[in-house]
């Protein structure tokens, strides 16, 4: 209970500090508009943010303390702070780079780009490079079983590490760094293919339903209702189990089935969106004009409707990509996803996840699963940042 009392006391202190902050600000600056028009809530917000920042800074200092038990306790916060600063700095540098190099068009693009978006683009580029050149970048093969098993990440021999394997090795002695790098190729590649397929199916049918209406629309919409009423992960699992019986030992075939199954299940969500967006577009006069011209269905959908639906579809693409990604990870864990010995981030996280429990006294060990999970999270966050920005741009809002 003490902790709750402490929280209450802290909040009270912050509330008081907020008032003082505004009052002093008004007095000192001679009523500058910033302080003059500041509402009380905002003042408290500033104080809250300041307290959090100080706490983070202090945690960071503690995480570097020589006392191992204290340092261990703040290890993750410390690493998070370092990571955040590193990412922010590289995004910033990348934006400066983009503003000065390249064609006039890209330079202009970079000038109006928020830091989050430049971070997203940078991350996506890095992932793409890593995925495409995985073979050249990775120090070892993804299937290569090396002598030393269960090497702790960090490369510090005193803590059970080995400088040859900076991120350690897994249970049977495969280099985690190499597997992470190959994981980009496998996981990202397959997730991307799946998402694209889901969009092809969902968007085409959705626009078709929106344009044609009538019984086709009814039929498709009801079918989608049925599919959506079944929890998607469970349904994917059911179908994958059936598919793996069909595929037998053909690994390639199973991966193909997986792509198709997830794509079909996810395309229902795309369908709904595409249909809704499509319905708003088909009432436009330019669609009517095209119909009156006698245009065919294909032209209407792909040349008239699609270009106007890109913004919402792109936004959905970002989110969908994340979900597909996570679904594949879950399926891989359940033994029906990406087949071993191909490296896959989802499986890696689940395999190593239990080490998190030991964070209190062996944070280096606990960071192993966090690496694969961060690889997933980082990419999805990056994609979403870029999508956010594109949405914002296309919405034409000034703010």
């Amino acid at each position, binding site marked *: 209970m003490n902790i709750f009392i402490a929280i209450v006391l802290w909040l009270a202190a912050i509330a008081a500090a907020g008032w003082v902050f505004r009052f002093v600000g008004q007095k000192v600056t001679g009523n500058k508009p910033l302080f003059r*028009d500041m509402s009380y809530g905002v003042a408290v917000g500033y104080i809250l943010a300041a307290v959090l920042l100080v706490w983070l800074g202090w945690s960071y200092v503690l995480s570097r303390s020589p006392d191992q038990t204290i340092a261990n306790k703040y290890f993750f916060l410390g690493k998070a702070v370092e990571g955040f600063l590193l990412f922010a700095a590289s995004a910033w540098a990348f934006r400066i780079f983009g503003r000065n190099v390249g064609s006039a068009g890209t330079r202009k693009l970079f000038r109006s780009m928020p830091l989050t978006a430049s971070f997203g683009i940078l991350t996506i580029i890095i992932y793409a490079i890593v995925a495409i050149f995985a073979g050249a970048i990775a120090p070892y093969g993804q299937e290569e079983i090396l002598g030393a098993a269960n090497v702790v990440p960090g490369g510090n021999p005193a803590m059970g590490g080995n400088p040859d394997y900076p991120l350690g090795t897994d249970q049977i002695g495969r280099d985690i760094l190499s597997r992470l790098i190959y994981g980009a190729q496998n996981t990202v590649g397959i997730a991307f293919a799946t998402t694209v397929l889901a969009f092809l199916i969902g968007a085409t049918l959705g626009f078709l339903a929106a344009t044609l209406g009538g019984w086709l629309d009814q039929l498709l919409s009801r079918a989608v209702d049925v599919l959506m009423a079944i929890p998607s992960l469970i349904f994917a699992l059911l179908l994958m189990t059936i598919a793996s019986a069909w595929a037998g030992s053909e690994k390639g075939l199973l991966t193909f089935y997986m792509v198709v199954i997830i794509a079909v299940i996810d395309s229902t969500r795309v369908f709904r969106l595409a249909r809704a967006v499509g319905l708003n577009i088909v009432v436009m006069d330019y669609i009517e004009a095209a119909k009156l*011209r006698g245009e065919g269905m294909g032209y209407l959908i792909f040349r008239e409707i699609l270009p106007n639906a890109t913004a919402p579809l792109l936004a959905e693409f970002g989110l969908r990509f994340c979900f597909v990604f996570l679904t594949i990870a879950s399926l891989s864990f359940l033994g029906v996803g990406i087949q071993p010995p191909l490296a896959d981030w989802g499986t890696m996280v689940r395999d190593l996840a239990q080490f998190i429990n030991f964070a209190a006294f062996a944070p280096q060990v606990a960071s192993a699963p966090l690496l694969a999970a961060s690889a997933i999270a980082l990419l999805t966050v990056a994609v979403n940042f870029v999508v956010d920005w594109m949405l914002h741009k296309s919405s034409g809002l000034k703010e």
Partner: protein
Amino acid sequence: MAEQLLKVRGLKIEGRSDETWNQIVNGVDFELKKGEVIGLIGESGAGKSTVGLAAMGFTRDGCRISAGEVEFDGINLVNASAKVKRELLGKRIAYVAQSAAASFNPAHRLIDQHTEAPVQHGVMSKAESEADGMELYRKLRLPDPENIGFRYPHQVSGGQLQRAMTAMAMSTRPDLIIFDEPTTALDVTTQIEVLASIREIVEEFDTAAIYITHDLAVVAQMADKIKVLLKGDEVEEADTRTMLSDPKEDYTKSLWAVRSFQRPQKPYVQTGQTPVVSVSNVTAAYGKVPVLHDVSFDIHAGRTVAVVGESGSGKSTTARCITGLLPPKQGHIEFDGEALPLDYRKRNKMQLRQAQMIYQMADTALNPRKTIGELIGRPVQFYMGLTGKEKRKRVDSLLEEIELEPSVYYNRLPSELSGGQKQRIGIARALAAEPKFIICDEVTSALDQLVAEGILKLLAKLQDELGLSYMFITHDLATVKSIADEVVVMKDGRVVEQGPKDDMFKPPHHPYTDLLLSSVPEMDPDWLTNLLKERGVDNIGDAAVGKM
């Protein structure tokens, strides 16, 4: 000389686009006394609304006041704190927006929105304000003033909403009201009612007002003095009567002149000639709701038939029947003497090509993701089968025909064009099909008068060159006057009167035609006063009730 209520001096406003600040208003000055009305007039984009808002110390997102002063009753609004401004807004200064339908919050009842400002500013209690609101509704001759406030905005007609908005502005008895084109969205007959009630209430409470509009005739009825703006610059300012009778600047003169564009009446059509389009006894319905009843008229080669009528009278529906989008329940449509299939999907390419349509809202009629070249090129390719260089050549010649420089505009997107230019693209797209007949559905209603005039002239020129026939749908009688050969008047889905233009503008009329004609504002400051006298004030309220 009474105390000046509002002083605007050297007002400059910038707006941001593409990372740079552009000047929107370049130094505007004016002063306003208590009870005085100033009219701000100018074409679209001239900065009228921006100035109007700045008079409240308010700028839109992305804009800022870069220089100058706005002093309201001794308070400088430019650098007043947000709190001080909030105190004034809605209490001493009120705003009436262009479209009441959009400016009322659809989620709340009228009366709740009415009482919000008085209650929030502590002027009156909710109950007092409600009672006062009913009183105002009664003054503004809204039907059923006791209960109309308990309706939601969508349950009230446009004209009534506009009056409710005026009542809302009066709710705190402000010293200054800004009217931003309060009647532009209304049709002529409704406009009269709203204008009358606004003028009355402003006079009764002796409120100062800024009246913004682009319609000279309207401002003439409302304002004591007029200020003309052009692209953010002040053109001239003068007392209303002086301004009307003796405009100094060329630009002002050209504005005045717009209203006089007119084509001579062509000779009457000989009987026996086959019409290009013949609509006979068409009855149509959306689902079970009947909309058109037994509509018949003919359109002959090289002629323009104007279809007029108030909003909802079935003008657009008639067009939809002709194009085949809404197959009529009864009746038939002939083209060049041959019966057309009623459903457009059953028509062949040739039949589709012959009749083209130009839409009112160029924004929604042009696919925003396609360049001008693609937009015009598509029908060229689709109907004429031209590709590559030939297509480009044809598109270029079409662009020249609508007086746009091909090299400049070929690769632009619709969003990079002005309203008038967009409308021209719509025309070019129709022309690309090389049709015989074009339906123009309110093609000039969304444009301001100078631009509209340009479009009308263009259409007339094309008709002369290509021998096109037009069906010209509009609710603006001035436009009818300038372009039509024949006129069809519609009301409630029926044709109430039709005939050659000159006949239509001469009495005797069908009573409805009469109402329409007499409602078109004229450039005489006394016109409204006289008209009201003539019609008898009470009629206005009744007309409004009838519209519900």
